[in-house]
């Protein structure tokens, strides 16, 4: 048992937890601190979490990045503390947002979902269950079409630990766009877990921008449950840091649901990013399309574990998962592992994982137009993830991400 985990448990004991949070504390006591032998943490070390030095000094004021042309409802957490008064916000009709602190006191249909969609086996998910004091409970009324994107911003500053939790419920035929954006670069620890129930025929457009980098440690998850004919379109954009880890779970709980999940990761020198995704097809006629693409820089490390689990009754499932990686240096490292578990016989399932190389034909084409070799390689390498940026439906966000990724990429060396 690690000191760090013991200290989390001790804090949980003092907090007089009830309900699902108490259950999480009990489960956490059964957990072992991950080592290289733990399947879920085989390639990524949690040691940085233990070594993190916290500071009691107050942090320099931070302000969230503006995304040009994006009109959004911004909810800002700095080091885990919400900066707005929720009751002063004017919200579109059909959208309600409550603070997580009301979890134990107020009855709300969404509060009942806390820790119900996120699987209990994620260690840091349990930590977040126990420690998250702040967060949001978002509810979209049936049939409500919320066109204003909700942007949840988490900023982490030096020496701070923060735990934020979000639970979102979309009623039948509701529509919502959520952008989750995390940033920080100084030594800190941030956990952020979000659970989504997408009601029958509802539609969620979701973005997770996991932009913690440098010495900032972030561990989090996005967990989606899709009811009948629900649609999810989720885009993850991640940088790497000393420790950056995300678990994404997509559960097809109702038939004829459609999930599309694109992940882009761009890892600079020495950075680590670890993505575990798990798609559960529990019912027939579901569709999942997952595309993960990464560019891995010098001495950087990408871990991708993509699991698709098609249950026995989940006939007529269509599931496609593809992971492609581009190594910019021999000293970069990629661990990609598909995990297919198919128990139904009438399904279409494709799974591919590759370490890509720049095509000679494409390089030759650019060279033949006078473009220098180094510039051509930059364009082609970046083009590899640009393809997924092009699929982002929100244009201002796509432009902003393009510039941000391009800027980071231009500072990376092709070796």
């Amino acid at each position: 048992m690690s000191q760090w985990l013991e200290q989390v448990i001790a804090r949980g004991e003092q907090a007089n937890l009830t309900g699902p949070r108490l259950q999480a504390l009990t489960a956490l006591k059964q957990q072992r601190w991950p080592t290289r032998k733990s399947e879920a943490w085989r390639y990524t070390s949690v040691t940085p979490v233990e070594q993190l030095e916290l500071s009691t000094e107050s942090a320099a004021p931070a302000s969230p990045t503006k995304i040009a042309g994006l009109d959004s409802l911004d909810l800002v957490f700095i080091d885990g503390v919400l900066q707005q008064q929720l009751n002063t916000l004017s919200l579109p009709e059909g959208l309600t947002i409550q603070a997580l602190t009301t979890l134990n006191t107020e009855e709300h249909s969404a509060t009942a979902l806390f820790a119900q969609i996120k699987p209990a086996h994620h260690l840091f998910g349990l930590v977040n269950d126990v420690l998250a004091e702040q967060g949001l409970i978002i509810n979209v009324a049936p049939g409500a079409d919320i066109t204003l994107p909700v942007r949840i911003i988490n900023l982490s500053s030096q020496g701070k630990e923060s735990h934020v939790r979000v639970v979102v419920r979309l009623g039948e035929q509701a529509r919502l766009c959520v952008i989750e954006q995390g940033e920080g670069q100084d030594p800190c620890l941030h956990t952020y877990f979000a659970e989504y129930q997408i009601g029958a025929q509802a539609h969620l457009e979701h973005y997770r921008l996991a932009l913690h980098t440098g010495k900032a440690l972030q561990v989090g998850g996005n967990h989606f449950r899709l009811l009948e004919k629900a649609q999810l379109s989720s885009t993850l954009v991640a940088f790497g840091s000393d420790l950056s880890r995300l678990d994404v779970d997509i559960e097809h709980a109702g038939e004829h649901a459609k999930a599309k999940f694109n992940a882009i990761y761009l890892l600079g020198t020495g950075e680590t990013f670890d993505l575990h995704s798990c798609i559960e097809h529990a019912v027939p006629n579901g569709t999942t399309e997952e595309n993960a693409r990464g560019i891995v820089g010098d001495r950087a490390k990408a871990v991708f574990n993509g699991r698709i689990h098609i249950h026995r009754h989940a006939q007529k499932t269509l599931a496609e998962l593809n992971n492609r990686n581009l190594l910019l240096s021999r000293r970069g490292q990629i661990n990609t592992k598909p995990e297919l578990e198919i128990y139904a016989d009438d399904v279409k399932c494709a799974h591919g994982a590759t370490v890509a190389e720049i095509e000679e034909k494409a390089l030759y084409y650019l060279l033949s137009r006078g473009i220098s070799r180094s510039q051509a390689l930059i364009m082609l390498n970046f083009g590899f993830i640009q393809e997924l940026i092009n699929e982002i439906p929100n244009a201002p966000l796509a432009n902003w991400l393009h510039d941000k990724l391009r800027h980071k990429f231009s500072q990376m060396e092709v070796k």
Partner: protein
Amino acid sequence: MLKIHNLHAKVEDKTILKGLSLEIKPGEVHAIMGPNGAGKSTLGYVLSGRDGYEVIDGQVELGGKDLLELETEERAREGLFLAFQYPVEIPGVSNMEFMKESVNAMREARGEEPLSAAEFLKKAKEACKQVHLPLDFLKRGVNEGFSGGEKKRNEIMQMILLEPKLCILDESDSGLDIDALQVVADGVNSQRSPERSFIVVTHYQRLLDYIKPDFVHILADGKIVKSGDASLALEVEKEGYAWLGGKAQEADA
């Protein structure tokens, strides 16, 4: 402009060009015809310096410079342009970015300032119109999802923007209907000038009704086997390549 002397080249240990010689003066248009597999595309690749196409003998000069000493991108900056028979699709790179980079690479080589985004856009739009491609093609990935004809017109658009000295068009007519052929031919004709030369590689005489060549050469089995004026193309059209003898005929089959 271009002097090719006794060029021998191989691909993967197979010798394809077997002593090809050709001289082109400024402002001239030379057509190269010949059966499938004769080595027409190979000639373009060798001249542009594609990896894997190895020159084993001979010399090539472009504007007095030893072309074979140069890298692919340097050859392009010296004014060599190859319109590909099969242009490649590059989904992640937009046409706009691709062409802006290449136009500015050429400008830099000439010691000119790079074009600003706005200046480039203006030029690109004009070129786009000239080859009858919708403007949204500029935003799309390079050749991504373009039809065969659109790809060929995109090549011509690049030629217009890059203002090369020597243009090699590799079957820019194949697979085109008569309207698209007209667009390609108009694009080429608009670029003809006393300083600019063309090699028009084609399988059919048809294109040469629109782009009038000064000379026509027959390339067979890696060599120029016959040269003449425009009437040679009509002869080929009538008689095929049978007169070339067994080997070339086989390649044509």
